[in-house]
């Protein structure tokens, strides 16, 4: 049995080896190089990076935007997932198409569409004016608000689907049991439905957050140079400034944040899973 088990384990080797060499190794080298100084290991580049106020602003902005995007997506996605779980027939198809079609499109198409939508003479502004809500065009393009809305729109399917798939698998007797035991709708929601849907919320939020801190195309098209995020700084360092050490440092910072998000959400998922 052991020999057979070993042989099966060997099947994973080609894929693992490939990823290890082409994916993990370069990332590790990047991290290593960022702490490599002239005389040995040093954190000088990091210190330089963080002491610059501009960099700190960018870092804080990146985190803030990602957080707001995740929250907005969650607020929209949670009720939507519930509606989807009750949808049947044609309605379910409509939901699924509305989610899967944008996912299949690609970032550039969508970011581009939002950049059109947010213009002064764009659809949103003309609609607002026609409805009489505003008198003049509202400046939306190049604002952080627009970025959060656009990003939330692009990442929304990745928040809805994990929550939906968890809710869908919920034993429908559980809320009924809660009611028959005397739970008011609110008690039932907070003590049964919400805790049980949490794994989906964690998975969706972690994924959305990591996509949001890494995004490049969306901020480029919606806010441009005026309000940069970490990814944009990285691109600028490499493609325009030709400042590789700086670019590598910023990349390392972003990478560390991303790894942290992965580890934290796995731990959280493990904690939730352990009780279920």
């Amino acid at each position, binding site marked *: 049995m052991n020999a057979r088990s070993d042989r099966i384990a060997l099947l994973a080797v080609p894929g693992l080896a490939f990823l290890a060499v082409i994916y993990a190794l370069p990332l590790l080298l990047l991290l290593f190089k960022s702490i490599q100084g002239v005389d040995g290991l040093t954190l000088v580049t990091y210190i330089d990076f963080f002491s610059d106020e501009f960099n700190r602003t960018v870092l804080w902005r990146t985190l803030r935007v990602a957080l707001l995007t995740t929250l907005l997506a969650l607020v929209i996605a949670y009720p939507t997932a519930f509606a989807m779980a009750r949808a049947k027939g044609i309605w379910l198809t409509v939901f699924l198409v509305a989610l899967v079609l944008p996912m299949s499109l690609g970032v550039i198409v969508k970011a581009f569409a939002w950049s059109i939508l947010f213009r002064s003479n764009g659809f949103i502004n003309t609609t607002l004016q026609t409805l009489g809500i505003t008198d003049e065009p509202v400046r939306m393009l190049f604002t952080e608000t627009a970025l959060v809305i656009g990003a939330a729109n692009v990442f929304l399917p990745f928040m809805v689907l994990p929550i939906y798939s968890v809710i869908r698998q919920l034993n429908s007797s559980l809320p009924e049991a809660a009611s*028959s035991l005397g*739970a008011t709708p609110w*008690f039932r929601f907070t003590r049964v439905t919400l805790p*049980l849907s949490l794994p989906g919320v964690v998975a969706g939020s972690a994924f959305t957050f990591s996509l949001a801190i890494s995004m490049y195309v969306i901020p480029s098209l919606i806010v441009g140079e005026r309000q940069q995020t970490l990814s944009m700084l990285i691109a600028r360092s490499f493609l325009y400034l030709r400042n590789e050490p700086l670019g590598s440092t910023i990349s390392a910072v972003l990478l560390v944040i991303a790894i942290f998000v992965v580890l934290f959400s796995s731990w959280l998922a493990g904690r*939730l899973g352990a*009780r*279920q």
Partner: protein
Amino acid sequence: MQPKTTEQDQKSHRYLDVVGVTKSFKGTVVMDQMNFRVAKGELVSLLGPSGCGKTTLLRIIAGLLEANTGDIVLGGRNVSSLPAHKRNISVVFQNYALFPHLTVAENVAFGLRARGMSSADVKAPVADVLALVRMDSFADRPVSALSGGQQQRVAVARALVVSPDLLLLDEPFSALDRKLRETMQIELKALLRSRGITAIFVTHDQEEAMGVSDRIAVMSNGKIEQFAEPSVLYAQPASPFVMDFVGLSTRMSGRVTAQADGIATVETGVGAVRAHAGYTVGTMVQVGVRPELITPDPSAEMNQIKVQLNDVMTLGSKTVLHGISSGEDKFLCELSGIRTGYARGETVTWGWAVADTLIHEVAA
């Protein structure tokens, strides 16, 4: 009819009164003017094949499903307009529906917490009821670690700790294996009796219903065909359906060819059968008799039929003879103990007392 809130009602036959309940799904009426009464402290079963409406009725009583018309009156209180969480009717679900994210103790405490009790106050009642179902050592375990029988006990504890006015159980034993089932049935019955709980079981297993119930409502197509004690259902089934569903039987269809002195003579495919009944000549009927009342060695005044044996099953405590059946007719004879001397293909004569014949009119 206005329900009276008198002490008398509390103890009368009408502890639970289901009045005129009608339910239709998507235009099809599945239950029409259902009336159903249970006395306080009674253990009752709703028995029937799947689709007969027993689960629908249970859910309507629990408040998990809304009836189109009708009232549910419990202990003098009309609960029809109350949502499920205000009815004080507990339900034990078929798959137990234990909350996977809570421990055993937290599951049991759930109903009490929902009613506003603090976590300190629930400790004692929870411990008591867990001890009652012998699950006290499992109090802090996650429910995923429990076996089927253990889960069922926790589900029952959870339902009982809130002192419900009525307990509903939806096929509570179906997920357990045979041996465990019998043990749990005995335990549960004793537990409910000791606390004077009024309970309604839903089941498709007639042995289970017979084992736990004071009375059984045999249901078919949204109607109660007969609501009586198990012994009455067995010995005096009100319809062919009840006769077939509760217990086994030998049965044959035939036509009444003579009627005199309270005895009807029926011509069947295997011989003439007499029964204590009054029908007009020419009526189509189904006659039957319980297998253990048949003897392969009949005396002269008994009904006698000729049957060709198809199978002989030696089951230890009984020997079952199967006759070759044609159409809807069935031939079963149960003899106690181990009997030898019967072989497949043999033609034998079976007989039984005229008084034991069960007879029902059927549509032509």
